């Protein structure tokens, strides 16, 4: 495979890695993290390292920087940077290369910045002043310039602010500014947008592209996201188990992947065209019907869940001198849900998705509005009255690591709810149910006597699903059930959820920020912005013909697999989502909306029916929202 990547590079590569092997010393001897890795990056080129977690992407990036943890050893191979052998350099020599020749941006902007130093000081630190002989005022000038180049408004003011005063996207921009302060020839970006929202991600990716063109800088981008790879890459290298299994130009790779593993990953990518199909290995589970069997009977039925005017306020503690403030986490949310249906709730972080889920479960009590489950009003029940009802609504969490008590056996975890809800009669009957449940979610019976930490993320998520199903719920709230998982594991879990829904006639509320999963999985979509549902309708319709400008912006910010030059990253939504504690008047979206008028600034739009099933809260809905 490495021969093909050599063929692509013309002239002298900026970075040339040959037969790199990195191993970790551990209790059980050496474990290999990276093996036989060879790749080239030319000046000004973008190479995307694509792979699932644990495939050795980050280790590769760190070994170029000489930042490997002490337990790691480079046993073999060479890393040539501009003809300089990096593996042979001393730490002091490497320090001169880091920052000034090679810059790096990490995934987590929240922890990459020092919280007690101003942004400016941290940038100045990275500016090599000795070489350039700059005075301190010049250095400051340079820092402000850098911030301006990163597209940060009011750079002179931001320069003196602390990291906590900036949003996540801003912080990542600052991180890039720091990485670029030394004007490096190569920028390594290790999952730079994974912690960010999709609209912010689009902004950052655009920024990276633009900076790269301006400076003719090479970019090594580490990611797990195929869309990002397609948008950014000149060359793609797919990693698996520490090895590069396929290396090709972006066009070749995305039009015709060669390696079986790459093909498997492509098959696991959810999108609209695969609706109703299996994503994972088809031999494992049986094929579901393309259309859910109960689709046609839906409208005639009573809704399983009816939510009207739901409002959840958080109180910000007032004091003697300050009046109490309210944060509108969820405001005026209404929707109906039919049996067997999947409703997706999408929106950026902080839009109130998780609060909505918790208030539906009555874990957070709503301040206003009603939640009716099969004609039973839940919001008015006392905790005692609510207890027997709880079995009907269950939840599956995002983080498979914090959702299982590490001190409990899997058997006890799954049984816990059954015992509390008095399901399954005596202990032996319960044990039988637990075992069959475990089989249903695709785990071996031996798993029962083990602790959660002995399982992988995907297996833990299966345990979490089994726990929720143990009390035989009718409505399952899935709070980002796959966003912490790898692509191939996500495919398995989505397949499992589809099978279970069919077998048990389950109704799903599927919370997600990943629009490609939503368009694959959901029947209907509700788009949330600052605590309100602004658009609600059938998934196929919303995904193709959004009526709300925000929905449209969200959709266009998702990187697609289209590598043709015509499909550039569309102009991203400007700015950041405002905080729910300080909502704009009128339509909350108006400050970021190009179509906003005076009316949008003063009054919140009522529901407009774009089509019989498609509703939108917008004074000026997009025409595309009305299908022909």
């Amino acid at each position, binding site marked *: 495979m490495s021969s093909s990547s050599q063929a692509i590079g013309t002239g002298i590569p900026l970075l040339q890695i040959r037969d790199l092997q990195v191993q970790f010393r551990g209790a059980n001897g050496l474990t290999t993290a990276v093996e036989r890795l060879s790749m080239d990056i030319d000046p000004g080129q973008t190479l995307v390292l694509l792979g699932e977690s644990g495939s050795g992407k980050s280790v590769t990036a760190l070994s170029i920087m000489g930042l490997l943890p002490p337990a790691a050893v480079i046993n073999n191979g060479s890393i040539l940077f501009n003809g300089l052998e990096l593996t042979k350099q001393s730490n002091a020599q490497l320090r001169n290369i880091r920052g000034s020749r090679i810059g790096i941006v990490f995934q987590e902007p929240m922890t990459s910045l020092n919280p007690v130093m101003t942004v400016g000081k941290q940038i100045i630190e990275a500016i090599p002043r000795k070489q350039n002989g700059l005075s301190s005022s010049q250095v400051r000038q340079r820092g402000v310039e850098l911030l301006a180049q990163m597209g940060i408004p009011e750079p002179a003011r931001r320069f003196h602010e602390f990291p906590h005063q900036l949003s996540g996207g801003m912080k990542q921009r600052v991180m890039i500014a720091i990485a670029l302060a030394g004007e490096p020839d190569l920028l390594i970006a290790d999952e730079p947008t994974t912690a960010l929202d999709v609209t912010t991600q689009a902004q950052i990716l655009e920024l990276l592209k633009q900076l790269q063109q301006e400076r003719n800088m090479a970019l090594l981008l580490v990611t797990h996201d195929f869309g990002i790879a397609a948008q950014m890459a000149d060359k793609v290298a797919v990693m698996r188990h520490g090895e590069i299994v396929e290396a090709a130009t972006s066009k070749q790779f995305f039009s015709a992947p060669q390696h079986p593993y790459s093909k498997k990953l492509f098959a696991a990518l959810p999108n609209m065209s695969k609706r109703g199909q299996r994503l994972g290995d088809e031999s494992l589970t049986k094929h579901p019907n393309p259309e859910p069997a109960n689709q046609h009977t839906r409208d005639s039925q009573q809704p399983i869940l009816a939510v009207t005017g739901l409002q959840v306020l958080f109180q910000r503690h007032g004091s003697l001198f300050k009046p109490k403030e309210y944060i509108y986490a969820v405001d005026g949310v209404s929707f109906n849900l039919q049996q067997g249906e999947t409703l997706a709730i999408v929106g950026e972080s902080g839009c109130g998705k998780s609060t909505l889920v918790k208030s539906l479960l009555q874990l957070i009590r709503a301040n206003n509005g009603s939640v009716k489950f099969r004609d039973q009003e839940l919001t008015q029940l006392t905790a005692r009255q609510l207890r027997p009802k709880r079995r009907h609504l269950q939840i599956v969490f995002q983080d498979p690591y914090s*959702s299982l008590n590490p001190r409990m056996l899997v058997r006890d975890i799954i049984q816990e709810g059954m015992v509390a809800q008095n399901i399954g009669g005596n202990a032996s009957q319960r044990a039988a149910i637990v075992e069959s449940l475990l089989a249903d979610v695709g785990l071996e019976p031996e798993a029962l006597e083990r602790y959660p930490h002995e399982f992988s993320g995907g297996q833990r998520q299966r345990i979490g699903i089994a726990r929720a199903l143990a009390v035989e719920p009718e409505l399952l709230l899935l709070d980002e059930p796959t966003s912490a998982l790898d692509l191939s594991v996500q495919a398995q879990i989505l397949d499992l959820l589809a099978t279970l829904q069919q077998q048990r006639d389950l109704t799903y509320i599927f919370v997600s920020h990943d629009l490609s999963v939503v368009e694959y999985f959901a029947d209907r979509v509700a788009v949330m912005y600052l605590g309100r549902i602004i658009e609600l309708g059938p998934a196929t319709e919303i995904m193709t013909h959004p009526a709300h400008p925000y929905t449209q912006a969200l959709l266009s910010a998702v990187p697609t697999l289209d590598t043709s030059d015509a499909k550039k990253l569309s102009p991203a939504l400007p700015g950041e989502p405002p905080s729910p504690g300080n909502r704009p008047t009128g339509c909350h979206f108006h400050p970021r909306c190009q179509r906003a008028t005076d009316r949008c600034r003063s009054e919140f739009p009522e529901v407009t029916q774009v089509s019989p099933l498609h509703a939108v809260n917008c004074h000026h809905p997009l025409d595309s929202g009305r299908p022909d």
Partner: protein
Amino acid sequence: MMSGQFAFLVSDYLIWAVTLIAAIWLLVGMRNSQQRQRWQMVLKRPTAMAAFILLMIYLLIALIDSIHYRPLITNHTNSGDLQYAASEVSVLDQLLMPLSQAQERSYSAPLAFKAFSKQQISTSSGAKRVYARLEHGGTGLEHEQDHLTDLLTRTGKGIGLSLLMLTPIALLFGYQRRKQIHPNDQSSEPSTQSPSIAWKTAAITLGMLTTLFMVATQLGSDYHLLGTDKVGQDVLLLGLKSIRTGILIGALTLLIMLPLALIMGTTAGYFGGRIDDLVQYLYTTLSSIPGVLLIAAAVLSINLYLDQNLSEVITLQQRADLRLLTLTGILGLTGWIGLCRLLRAESLKLRELDYVTAARAFGIPDWQILMRHLLPNLSHIVLITIVLEFSGLVLAEAVLSYVGVGVDPSMNSWGNMINGARLELAREPAVWWSLATAFVFMFTLVLSANLFADAVRDAFDPRLRGSQ
């Protein structure tokens, strides 16, 4: 053995109760195979094994010292009434009788045969100041120059005796082990995957302790192994008797502190709101009062009460015992704050975790969530704090005794020994052995506790186990 009447002190009951509860809890826990495996993991580690044995010996001494009785006095009246001594004696006192009876006039250095300071002796030729021979040190010595030889002979004899005792046992066990591990082939490595308990370390530790014991008895039969104090008491005896005080202060204080900290910390963190406000108010108020001042005020007022009301009814030892109990009580009432804060903070974090949300979504009552989801996940914090506090309390006793609000001055404790050493160290040449003895005894206890707890934490914290 002298017969007598059992006269348990309050603290005796408490320490036995704590020990029994702990033992039963452990035994019940051992039925669970997971628990058993974890304890095996603890004892797999050589340092933990050695620390465990030392801790057990300390506990054993403390327990033996906690069986008090009033010995029968051989009555000279022939009335037939049995008469018991007015003060309580423990089984340990009885065992250490030779040490307590070997009373000197004043200081003597470890293993000395002469007094530490000169004494006025009147002879026929007038008064002379000489280093007098000890009454119970080196009595067998005929010539002074034989001193070193005598010490060496006794040491050798002690080592020899212990070797004589240990070698057959060691050979027997070694033979059996070899038979078990290598039935036929020598090539197979000792089983690496199944954790084997560090028996070797245990054997070595016990062997060394036996040797130490044998040498000590050989030397101690005619010498003061660790010298004598100002009033001529054997310092080794003082050190051994102080073990009970140290263990009591540590264990009973924790007994009072733990429930307070656990209940307040977890409920404050989990429920929040008014309960949290109340608990926070309580501990900020308490912690803003200087701890030593609070302890001093409480101890002094209780002493006053004891003197005024109960001095007729109780013996001196009972009085000292009550004073010790009040001290542990007050230490417990002031000491829960640190742990409570930690537990509150951790509970605040845990209650937001998804598995707690899942439990709430199942409609599980709050107290069950507290017991099942919070407490087990707090146990490593509790465990670590217990050990740190235990060590800290043993050390705090010394400080408080120094200030004069610690245990009763008549009670043997390392604190009192160190307090006494204040003046001893100012002498020229200095009397160092009281301080050294207290230090060694305390150091061994605290270090063993810390090492043992390290291993326990590593074995019981699932996050650490996952990384192994």
